[in-house]
């Protein structure tokens, strides 16, 4: 339409031209392979099976059942005039009934072992926005957050891209099941200091992505002590808290704080979302829960850039206030995820593959290091490419999660049917068999 005009190139910002959005990482390359050749049990049985997407599809029937039985309350009530009030509502405090429902849901996910005050719930459009928003509030450009490795690749974008904040890794390794140690915390802090970088906080994911493991209570207390000692913040991303297979094995930082009578809690902040536990990533429901009044006030103001659609707030307020439903959902969801996990672990074991013993999440942390040609990232990526193109499975290489030990892979299991999972397992079985014969 427009005539080509030769013009001097027009400047964009440094942020725009940087690669911190992270989409050139291998984490996303596998997605492209899947997009071009997606598996379908009837139409494309030899296509790529998507095992790189941490989605929870195992409990949708429960949500659909709820909606069918509760149409009126989900749909602005019988009087459509409820629509108007809803469409006009743009208060960044959010709909009160929804905030209360979120607080109550978070309590239920923790089995009532921690209490949440609705006035401390700040709503954001997804955990992606929540993590970025918190970073803007807790750190200045050039400062750092300490993050244990391996970690969710999206953090490179969410915590760093527009904020200008850096991530300094806390090295964890398989010798102790990738648990965070006080020594590793100190080492990361010292490393940052030696580079003249100011550390503003520690950000943990509990249960962990990609490990699929709960952080032990003792370790949580050590991390909190470390944060107090260094006078920095502690952010706990607990978006997988409802995906812990055993309710009593997940310990939230909220419980640790409650047991200390909330001493030193004003440096603690929790990120939550409904994308994983409820399987609703499209609805963009995230929250920042802070024990610090000023953070709550500031976060609320900043949430103007990323509010949750009032239509969605309305729907979920009614759903999550139904305690009978949520209790049932949380319980059944845990059971189904556990069953899936056992299925994949046993299937991999039969194929001769070990996984990290985890008891949470929508994925397992698979160890293929015995099958690498050399213990290097290069070999890891080589085997990953083979798995993508020949075995036709999209799994996530540990290096894209900043894992320092080559050979680990994150494999998602909750975003497909059981039948598809069987197909994936049999493909892996074949692949390893051939690999063993070949080696």
């Amino acid at each position: 339409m427009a005539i080509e005009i030769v013009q001097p190139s027009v400047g964009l910002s440094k942020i725009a031209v940087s690669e911190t959005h992270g989409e050139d990482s291998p984490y996303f390359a596998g997605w492209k392979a899947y997009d071009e050749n997606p598996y379908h049990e009837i139409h494309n049985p030899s296509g790529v099976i998507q095992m790189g997407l941490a989605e929870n599809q195992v409990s949708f029937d429960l949500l659909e059942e709820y909606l069918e039985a509760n149409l009126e309350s989900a749909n602005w009530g019988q009087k459509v005039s409820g629509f108007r009030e809803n469409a006009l509502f743009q208060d960044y405090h959010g709909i009160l009934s929804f905030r209360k429902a979120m607080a109550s849901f978070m309590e239920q996910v923790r089995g009532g072992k921690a209490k949440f005050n609705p006035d401390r719930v700040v709503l954001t459009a997804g955990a992606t926005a929540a993590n970025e928003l918190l970073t803007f509030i807790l750190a200045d450009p050039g400062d750092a957050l300490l993050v244990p490795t391996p970690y969710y690749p999206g953090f490179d974008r969410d915590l760093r891209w527009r904020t200008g904040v850096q991530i300094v890794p806390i090295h964890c390794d398989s010798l102790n099941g990738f648990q965070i140690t006080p020594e590793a915390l100190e080492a990361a802090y010292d490393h940052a200091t030696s580079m003249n970088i100011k550390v503003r906080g520690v950000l943990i994911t509990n249960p962990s992505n990609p490990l699929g493991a709960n952080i032990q209570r003792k370790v949580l207390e050590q991390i909190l002590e470390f944060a107090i000692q260094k006078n920095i913040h502690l952010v706990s991303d607990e978006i997988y808290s409802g995906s812990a297979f055993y309710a009593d094995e997940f310990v939230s930082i909220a419980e640790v704080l409650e047991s200390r009578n909330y001493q030193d809690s004003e440096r603690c902040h929790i990120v939550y979302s409904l994308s994983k536990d409820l399987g609703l990533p499209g609805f963009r429901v995230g929250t920042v829960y802070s024990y610090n009044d000023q953070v709550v006030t500031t976060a609320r103001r900043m949430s103007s850039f990323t509010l949750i659609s009032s239509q969605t707030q309305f729907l979920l307020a009614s759903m999550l206030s139904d305690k009978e439903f949520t209790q049932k959902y949380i319980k059944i969801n845990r059971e189904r995820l556990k069953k899936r996990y056992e299925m994949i672990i046993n299937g991999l074991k039969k194929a001769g593959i070990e996984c990290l013993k985890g008891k949470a999440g929508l994925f397992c942390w698979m160890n293929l290091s015995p099958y690498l040609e050399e213990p290097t990232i290069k070999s890891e990526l080589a085997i990953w490419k083979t798995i993508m193109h020949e075995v036709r499975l999209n799994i996530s290489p540990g290096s894209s999660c900043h894992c320092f030990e080559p050979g680990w892979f994150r494999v998602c299991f909750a975003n497909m049917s059981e039948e598809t999972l069987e197909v994936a397992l049999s493909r892996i079985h074949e692949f390893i068999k051939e690999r063993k014969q070949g080696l």
Partner: protein
Amino acid sequence: MEVALNNNTHKLLSKIAINDGHGENSPYFDGWKAYDTNPYHPRNNPSGVIQMGLAENQLCFDLIEEWIKNHPEASICSPQGGFDFKEIALFQDYHGLPEFRGAIANFMSRVRGSRVKFDPSRIVMSGGATGAHETVAFCLANRGEAFLVPTPYYPGFDRDLKWRTGIELIPVVCESTNNFKVTLGALEEAYDKARESNIKVKGLLITNPSNPLGTFFDKDTLKTLVRFINEKNIHLVCDEIYAGTVTNGNEFVSIAEILEEFPTICNHNLIHIVYSLSKDMGFPGFRVGIIYSYNDTVVNIARKMSSFGLVSTQTQHMVASMLSDNDFVDHFICESKIRLAHRHEMFIGELAEVGIGSLESNAGLFFWMDLRRFLKEPTFESEMTFWRIIINEIKLNVSPGSSFHCEEPGWFRVCFANMDDETVMVAVERIKSFVLERRMLEIKTKAMAKNKKQCWQNNLQLKLSSRRLEDIMSPHSPLNSPMLRAQN
């Protein structure tokens, strides 16, 4: 649950967190607070504050509600739409639902009288126009660089464009002497001022139709602006969120039309549009913000950034359904314009009766009221004093021009589309009563001053106070202040 607030942690927060960039310490919010603590209600609180500081479009909800009732499939919670639930709930691709993008492009085109087409692949989502502006700023400018913005402008820009991005806003001063039009001279002056202060200008941001003026740019002015930014090689960001509020019979020109009619006028990579459904449709709660850029790189990057503010797929689905219904869309746009025009005319007509004028305008959800003659002095202190009178005595929350960075005191933005007809009349009556009482007071004060010198003035005063109100108001009354006609 009591949590002790440790003052030490104040130092633990970022500079952004502790500065005033959120903008809420501005007096702009005092009016809102006055309203929140004493909101008007026709039965429960008839003497409360009437909210006229909120630019919302509430005039056409009946049309929307009817559509919703007749289209249950638009909701994923209904039996008809329910089978889509899982697919919609899982969809988190930042490209957005294809049908959503298509519907938005279609709507944007129809709002502009179908005079121009929009490419769905250039539609990028954001958390409302608020999110869109911030994202565009992040894409186009670095910390410390600047955007030029004509005054008066929407106060929210100070937060949206500056707070977390660290960029500056440099005012392009517009004056009432030429109806606040943007002139090339003012642009050059602002640009040079920035240069002298060693601030790099990366773009010009215009709101068209304008908030708070309610006017829109004519074609020639738009062309002048486009040539200016092209010559300086800076970006042009056009906030067109009020495009659908331009009343019928008036030729609103979108920047999209300029590019179509004069394709060689500039480098298209410099042009970006911000849009939203909050004003034209009246859906601020649904957070449907749109970035439309003619620059491929910006589309790409803004799309990646949209991860921080995607539109809920539940809402995308509903909007896609509604805005693909061309019969509904055309009827809605047309009817909305008619109702807005009627409301606007009603208001300014009534105010003209008591000598209150406003800037002539044909768009927006508000008008720009001229209260200069009510100020004791032509200063912002006087403006604020008078504004407090308006809030506390007349009990109306209108927005003072200073909060929009207007360079001349005495102007106020008055919103008219966020209330029903009865409330409009109450507001109008309150203003009229105030003006008339003021006049009575002026008359009495003048009369009393004269009385000190001449005793016979007593008789005159008695005669004056016994005269009917209408006599005082008649154009033939020698005591009447000159009528301020609406400016052209």
